[in-house]
């Protein structure tokens, strides 16, 4: 007991120190350690979440790039197919139009030829008639004194008949 007295050990002071420390422990744990730890954990969680979000965004960006490439590739393929189809269609249309134009021009040429032949026939006939009229007039004038009216009429009739048969076209009398 003498030693304890030398060190100043007293039950009341000892108990005071124990109670004091436990109270301080309670206050610090409840109002300092826990809020700070929670804050640190919350911060860590947010940082982790932000890092995860950044990773997700990076992955999404990479996916978007790949998707863009895929869409561009598909679009290029579609464009190539459409271009090829359009070229083929154009070629077919061109061929068709050329063929139609050729047929039409041939038809026009044929029709023109037919018309020309008919025109030529008409002109021949008209020239024949004119030449007969002219011949008649010349003959009438030259042979008005040699032939009677009846003879003249007979000759004229025969000539007209021949013309109508196309006898002068070949150049024979």
């Amino acid at each position, binding site marked *: 007991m003498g030693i304890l007295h030398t060190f*100043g050990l007293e039950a009341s002071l000892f108990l005071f120190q124990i109670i004091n420390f436990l109270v301080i422990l309670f206050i610090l744990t409840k109002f300092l350690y826990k809020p*700070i730890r929670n804050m640190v954990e919350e911060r860590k969680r947010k940082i982790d979440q932000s890092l995860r979000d950044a990773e997700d965004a990076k992955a999404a960006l990479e996916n978007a790039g790949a998707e863009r490439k895929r869409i561009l590739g598909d679009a290029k393929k579609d464009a190539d197919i459409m271009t090829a189809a359009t070229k083929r269609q154009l070629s077919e249309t061109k061929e068709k139009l050329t063929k139609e134009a050729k047929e039409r021009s041939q038809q026009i040429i044929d029709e023109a030829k037919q018309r020309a032949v008919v025109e030529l026939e008409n002109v021949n006939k008209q020239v024949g008639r004119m030449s007969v009229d002219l011949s008649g007039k010349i003959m009438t004038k030259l042979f008005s004194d040699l032939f009677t009216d009846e003879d003249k009429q007979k000759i004229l009739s025969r000539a007209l008949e021949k013309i109508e048969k196309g006898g002068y076209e070949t150049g024979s009398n």
Partner: protein
Amino acid sequence: MSIAPDILFKIAGFPVTNTIITTLLTDLVLILIVICVSKTLSLKPKGFQNVVEIVIDYFYDLIEDTAGKKVSFIYPWVLTFFLFIVISNLAAQFPGFESIRFHPAGYGEEGVPFLRAATSDLNTTLALATISVIAANIIAIVRIGIKSYILKFVSFKMFPIFMFVGILEFANELTKFISFSFRLLGNIFAGESMLSQMYHLFPIGIPLPFMALEFMVAVIQALVFSMLTMAFMHILSDKPQH
């Protein structure tokens, strides 16, 4: 300078010593820290919150590295021991701790220092040691169960080897009270006494290196006490190998 704390006055029979005054000042500092941090606590730490977070995080990580999952219930004890002891020890380095005198009846002309490091009082160090040892044992019982806890001290396996080991373990627990309390008391009281003598002999200049040394001792002793507490709490809450 007496090793026993000096009684300044009594309140309803309770002796108020100069170490009690320092204990209350230490409490005040700790409560001010709590108030300052609580008021400005935010997700983006700044100023004082950074310092407190660094200290708490450092101890949390240190204990987690050693004790693993047991960190959640060990760290409040260890950190409180550290903060209480370090603030109490460092407070003694402030001017006025030796120079401000109190003159209670029967102490003569010179009187007694009004303030004295709380950890230079056996009442304080023994109280801290008692809390540390009892808390470590209670944590051990809660963690591993009463049966495993008793097996640490009483085992009939390989008789009488583990029986003897158990007795040694028990003696070890008892000696912790003495080693914890007297290590801290001895270091701080010796430092205070030395500084007190230095101030008397060489009031200016010469005490400075000793003050620096005492500053280191103050921090180291707080760290030693808290780290030993952590180690004992961790070791005791492990299941016995035998």
